[in-house]
């Protein structure tokens, strides 16, 4: 009941914010949200309810915004980023495998989609995007397994820099000019046709919702299972975990591969939606934004990263006045939040396997 009420209020708020035009009304809404957040934190407000509610809320929001292409595009982007971050969450949040090349694996998915889309059914292409990301990730497995901490960070940072330069220099993959993708077609649905009178983006929102639901389902089930326990043990104490029979390598490989797969699928969908990909989209700075979302939200908590994705994507769009100062302000805000809320906006709750 409480959860349903919160979902309804959140939907109404999101609708108001996305429709708001004037800077004053946007500022007021944001102030309201901050106040509500602070109050919730002060009152130790805890919320639990079925995940379906959240998805229903997004669906209702999408229907309310059915003619507003731009808001629907933002909504889809949030969903895609949520999926990508869910993948990273399995790596960072559960197994403790750092991956500063999130945008690269996102890009592998996108490039796979661009190359395969003219030849194969698109639903398969989405999955292959994930598979390709997992495969490319396997190149890094050896160094990732052997290194820890900052050394592991360097491996993925080096890969992120290498990947983007490689795409730009290499002409067979479109080089700096990128590649164009055909329209996304799944079964009878042509994604670029309008849905009756409403925006064609509704279909993307729907597909994004389905993917987000699937990814969330997988990630949540993973967490609430023996695998989740094993991954946490690997992250928290490798020596103790190994002493109790956990194969560190196996679990790190599993988490790295599953995470990259999920991120790759998100990348493939993103490429279809934008209809065009180029190396610029997959720079190291994009990976940093993904990691920021993870930490801002509260590492290990899917709802936290969903909240953080929404904030990171919507806020800059709504605060036009800051224009070229956007990146500066973004960086400063990340620093402040991590200083004062090191566990993120919504810290991961304790797992209670038996309820």
């Amino acid at each position, binding site marked *: 009941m409480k959860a349903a009420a919160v979902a309804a209020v959140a939907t109404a708020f999101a609708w108001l914010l996305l429709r708001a035009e004037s800077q004053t009304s946007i500022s007021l809404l944001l102030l309201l949200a901050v106040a509500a957040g602070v109050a919730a934190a002060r009152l130790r407000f805890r919320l639990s309810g079925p995940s379906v509610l959240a998805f229903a809320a997004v669906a209702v929001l999408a229907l309310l915004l059915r003619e507003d292409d731009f808001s629907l595009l933002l909504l889809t982007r949030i969903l895609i980023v949520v999926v990508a971050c869910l993948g990273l969450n399995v790596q960072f949040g559960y197994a403790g495998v750092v991956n500063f090349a999130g945008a690269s694996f996102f890009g592998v998915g996108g490039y796979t989609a661009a190359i395969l889309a003219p030849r194969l059914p698109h639903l398969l292409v989405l999955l292959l995007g994930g598979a390709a990301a997992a495969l490319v990730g396997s190149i890094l497995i050896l160094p990732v397994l052997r290194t820890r901490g900052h050394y592991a960070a360097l491996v993925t940072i080096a890969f992120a820099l290498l990947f983007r330069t490689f795409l730009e220099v290499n002409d067979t993959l479109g080089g700096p000019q990128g590649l164009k993708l055909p329209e996304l077609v799944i079964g009878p649905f042509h994604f670029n046709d309008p849905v009756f009178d409403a925006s064609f983006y509704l279909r993307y929102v729907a597909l994004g919702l389905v993917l987000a639901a699937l990814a969330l389902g997988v990630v949540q089930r*993973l967490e609430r299972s023996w695998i989740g326990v094993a991954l946490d043990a690997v992250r928290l104490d490798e020596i103790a975990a190994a002493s109790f029979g956990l194969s560190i390598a196996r679990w790190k490989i599993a988490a790295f591969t599953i995470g990259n797969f999920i991120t790759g699928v998100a990348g493939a969908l993103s490429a279809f939606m934008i209809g065009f990909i180029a190396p610029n989209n997959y720079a190291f700075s994009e990976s940093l934004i993904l990691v920021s979302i993870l930490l801002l939200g509260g590492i290990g908590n899917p709802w936290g990263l969903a909240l953080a994705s929404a904030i990171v994507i919507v806020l800059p769009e709504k605060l036009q006045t800051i224009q070229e100062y956007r990146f500066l302000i973004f960086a400063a805000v990340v620093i402040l939040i991590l200083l004062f809320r090191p566990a993120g906006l919504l810290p991961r709750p304790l797992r209670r*396997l038996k309820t």
Partner: protein
Amino acid sequence: MTALLSCRALTRRFGGLVALDRLDLEVERGTVLGLIGPNGSGKTTFFNVLTGIFPASGGEIGFDGAAITDLAPQQVYRIGIARTFQRSRLCLPLSIFDNLMVGNHRHLRHDLWFNLVRRKALRRQIGEQFAAARELLRIFDPPLAERMLEPAGRIPMIDRRRVEVCRALISRPKLLLLDEPSAGMTHDETLRLMDDILKVQQQIGSLTIILIEHEMSVIERITSRCVVLNYGKKIAEGAYAQVAQDAQVKQAYLGLE
């Protein structure tokens, strides 16, 4: 006579330092062996080499009729050797139950299909494990057994020690390695913990224990035999009363502590 564990000339070097020096050691099934010696005498190193955390520089380890000298930690665990650590190594953000389940790894199913799809079967297994874990924890501290879904970081040190011992016990190992389980406990608490461990030992039947302990009264009370280490070498062996009279042992302790 078959010893459960037998080490021959087990050696471990760290650079120039010889932490374990040609150690010969045997443990009979179902017994409790006390491992004593001054600080830095190689007791914990012995555990670490035995469990595969440090590879041995020389010598052999036989367990239950098989050579296990070169096994990795996770393999050592799978053949039935579990341990506790000198410094508490619980996963503090996880619940007590989760921590116990880390110790029960070899009895749980870890395939993706089972964990992601067969949720009903998984829930059933969780239920069974929960009941079993509660049972075990109850032996040590009944109130603690009712708090299994609280984070391990929120319980006092004594309880953490108990959880650590339970984590090592829950998989029903053949050999239990206890590395100063009573560190930070009072004398009475230590005795109680040891009694509880012995209670479990009787329940399991064939549990063999090696105990590293500084409290000599504990050693005296529960071990049937002791091995004394100094500078990585075995300097004495036998029942506590006998070892305690050994001149070399006395000197080692007096000289260093």
